[in-house]
């Protein structure tokens, strides 16, 4: 009888120890999984870095002062003025559309300044102009979108903002 009781209590202790170990193991697995998830989340979040760049902002500023071929009265208009003229569908003195001249000027400036493609450091870029909350009315795109981005922004005249993102 006594022998049976001892055997039974030994079995209970073993079972209790096993349960403890299983519980402990589970806790370790859960903690490890949580840490791994946090680690992967933080690493993937860091990959997509958007940096506000002085280089991009200075490019936008100098581009906005570039003198275009569009003549109104006696002056040749800078890009910043031509953007608001284009938004209002105005014409230049030689009857050319402000938007046509703006499109070709900005395209040529971007081609000359940012060589984008698989074989270059710059993989792509996107320049857009928008007024207030409205959708962008002019967009210039080239190359591919990547997760490493440098951006710049300038508020132009007549509430028209210029945003430029360069993908590396």
């Amino acid at each position, binding site marked *: 009888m006594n022998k049976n009781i001892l055997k039974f209590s030994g079995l209970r202790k073993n079972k209790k120890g096993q349960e403890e170990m299983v519980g402990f193991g589970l806790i*370790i697995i859960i903690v490890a999984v949580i840490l791994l998830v946090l680690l992967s989340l933080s690493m993937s979040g860091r990959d997509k*870095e958007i940096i506000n760049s*002085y*280089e991009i902002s200075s490019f936008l500023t100098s581009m906005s*002062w570039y003198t275009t071929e569009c003549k109104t009265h006696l002056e040749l208009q800078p890009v910043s003025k031509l953007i608001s003229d284009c938004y209002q569908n105005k014409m230049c003195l030689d009857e050319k559309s402000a938007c046509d001249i703006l499109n070709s000027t900005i395209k040529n400036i971007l081609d*000359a300044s940012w060589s984008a493609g698989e074989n270059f450091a710059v993989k792509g870029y996107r320049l857009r102009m928008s007024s207030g909350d409205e959708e962008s009315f002019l967009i210039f795109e080239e190359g591919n979108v990547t997760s490493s981005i440098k951006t710049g922004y300038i508020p132009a005249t007549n509430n028209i903002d210029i945003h430029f993102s360069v993908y590396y």
Partner: protein
Amino acid sequence: MVKRGQLKIQQMAFMLIAVTLFFVLAGMFVLVLKFSDLKKTALGLEDKNAMLLVSKLANSPEFSCGSAFGTSKINCIDSDKIMMLKNYVQNNKDYEDLWGVGKIQIRKIFPKEGDGLTDIECEGNYPNCNLITIFEKNVALGSEQSTYVTLCRKEVDEGYIFSKCEIALLFVYPEDRTNE
């Protein structure tokens, strides 16, 4: 008794492994956070240094447009003034030390001049050129810093004087003092 002891040792071994694993993972997590922040800080500082050095030059009285081209503009360089400055510095070498750098150069990037592949140094051919080397000291040069600038000048067309602004890059080369 022996079995119970073994179980205890096993439990302790598991515990040690778990604690080590926990600290390794936590350490990796902290390191990743710290190094990504360092990278970002380094990039920010690099950008800020370049910005400060080149902006200081672009907006100095010897370079800047001032109000000569309408409202005063940031990072606007008066190319007529720069050509005069270039000639002056060539004859007064002491002036080179004013900015504390080894070389200052302006490269027009739009519109392109000539075939667009070879640089045309501005001398008597101004403004039909794309490269203005203001000065270059005979010293070892550090890595370049650059910024986009507006390069403006006055032009005459049919008797009217008007402002013409183009896009250029201002390059500043600091003196290389790593061997000093």
